[in-house]
């Protein structure tokens, strides 16, 4: 079973890297960008066969390590 975790910064948290990327895209003449926010993607291959149990376990991984919930949100996709 495969899981994808997407970690993004919470609203209101300053993202200097996103800002720099936004500026660089503007420099490449990509106009019309309101905002860029940088995040992370983790692809996990799991031994689990039960989707509900897998999602629960991955959520714990996010809480304990993959995301810092002070500043980050996470979303989990299981397939």
């Amino acid at each position: 079973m495969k899981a994808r975790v997407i970690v993004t910064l919470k609203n209101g948290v300053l993202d200097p890297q996103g800002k720099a990327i936004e500026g660089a895209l503007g420099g490449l003449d990509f106009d019309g960008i309101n905002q860029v926010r940088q995040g992370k993607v983790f692809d996990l291959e799991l031994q689990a066969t039960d989707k509900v149990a897998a999602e629960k376990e991955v959520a714990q991984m996010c809480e304990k390590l993959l995301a810092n919930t002070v500043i980050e949100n996470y979303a989990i996709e299981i397939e």
Partner: protein
Amino acid sequence: MKTAIIVFPGSNRDRDMFDSIELITGTRPIGVWHTEATLPDADLIVVPGGFSYGDYLRSGAIAARSPILKDLVKKANAGVSVLGVCNGFQILTEAGLLPGVLMRNAGLNFVCKEVMLETVNEATRFSKTFTKGQVWRCPVAHHDGNYFADAETLKQVEGNGQVVFRYAQSTNPNGSLNDIAGVTNAQGNVLGMMPHPENLVEDLQGGTEGRLLFESLAASAA
């Protein structure tokens, strides 16, 4: 004062910490590798600066899940003094021992320079040999020192007097909220700070104000 210093793969300010503390207290700290299960009895536990695990995932994130951290959390909760400097500060926030988080510097650059600090709370075990409002010069060297906490946490931290050091005279090098350079936990026995007091302990380094922090701890331990 008995001191233990935790060493991680990628720590690089640990030797400065060993030498400075020995110079000031006369006792060589005990080094503890991160895979150990227990820390020795000590008055002070130091988490030094560096780039533990190459800053993978987030600065301090992997180190904060090391085996030794269980005992560090236990001892911190029991009231033992814990000091985290630079990467040590990042590790302590990742471990949940300190409020907030250290994000990428607002200017995106690694900063290696001297800043001015103001001691805004001189009533802690880390700062009692400073005078209130004392402004002193201190080196910083980091990429992720931008202190952030949500509005509610920040209000608590400020209200409880947990901010010990602030960047002064417009020298905030990283965009930290409220110019926060050093902050304690609610109990006041754990301090994290981005600047390096261990690099300001001999005249050769251009100043000795960093000694005051270790002398405060030694006086508290006596």
